[in-house]
């Protein structure tokens, strides 16, 4: 059931991505992207990655949508028509690389495989010792904020830098 639901969500993702790319009206494209973000959060939730689903819902479906719409306020609403030239080589390159990726994906471990490298490396130690070492019942929080805090620290710095860049570049009054 869950796998079937997941396949449905993944199919919806492909459709929504195509809509977002093809639609000429950019507000429509942004809304398709928001639906994409929300569907993706459902995929994460169906996989049991609730923390990731939460983040995807608030950022992918929420904040980034508002930012895109605010950007459209400053620019134009419709996409300019591009001349349909040079599509052949691009399509060939996409098909080739996409085919290679699909081919390579067959070597991936199965979904939830307990013998996969990701499951036998440091994960067991985190799961067994996480609560004793950090007193945080939510193991995702323990990993993100303690064991892998360096990653999270740089992430916050990146977001702050984005805010600073917007502050410095946008909305200045030229006198």
């Amino acid at each position, binding site marked *: 059931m869950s796998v079937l639901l997941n396949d449905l969500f993944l199919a919806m993702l492909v459709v929504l991505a195509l809509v977002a790319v093809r639609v000429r009206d950019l507000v429509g494209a942004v809304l398709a992207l928001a639906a994409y973000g929300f569907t993706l959060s459902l995929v994460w939730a169906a996989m049991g990655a*609730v*923390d990731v*689903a*939460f*983040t995807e819902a*608030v*950022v992918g479906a*929420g*904040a980034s949508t*508002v*930012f895109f719409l*605010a*950007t459209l*306020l*400053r620019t134009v609403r419709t996409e300019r028509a591009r001349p349909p030239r040079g599509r052949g080589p691009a399509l060939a390159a996409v098909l080739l690389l996409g085919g290679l990726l699909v081919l390579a994906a067959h070597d991936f471990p199965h979904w939830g495989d307990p013998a996969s490298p990701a499951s036998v490396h440091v994960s067991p130690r985190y799961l067994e010792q996480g609560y*004793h*070492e*950090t*007193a*945080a*019942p*939510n193991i*995702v*929080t*323990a990993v*993100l*904020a*303690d064991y892998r*805090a*360096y990653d*999270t*620290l740089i*992430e*916050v*710095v990146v*977001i*702050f830098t*984005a*805010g*600073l860049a*917007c*502050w410095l*570049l*946008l*909305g*200045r*009054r*030229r006198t």
Partner: protein
Amino acid sequence: MIQEHDSVIVRTVVRALVPFIQLFALYVVFHGHYSPGGGFQGGVILAATYILIALALGRAELDRRVREGVVLLLSAVGVLIFTLAGVLGPLRGAALLDYAVLPVPGVAGPPVRGLGILVIEIGVAFGVAGALTVIFCRLAKAGEGEEEDSA
């Protein structure tokens, strides 16, 4: 400039809901130890309340409630909280971002690391909420009619 929303229903509901959404954002930040969530998600929800204020009550109302410069400063303070909690480890002879050496009176062992997580989650919440609010404020500032200043 984003104007006040036409509908009195939207304005009233937003005015009434914003404090509760902000309370929920704090819950998400502080309950990250026990349930999905944490500083990042809570921070985004907090920023979303200010975006909501601007969209429903108008940009002037947002400017009345928060100052952009202060918000950016709070974002920097968030990054600073995280960094300070991190470098306290090396200063006390432990690894970077090892919260076990944080000076918390009356607590020892793993709970100190749990408290350290709470400290940096608060830092993350400040950093993310401030940065996202500033990005929205700046993106939505010019709107219509002010494009000529980008010449």
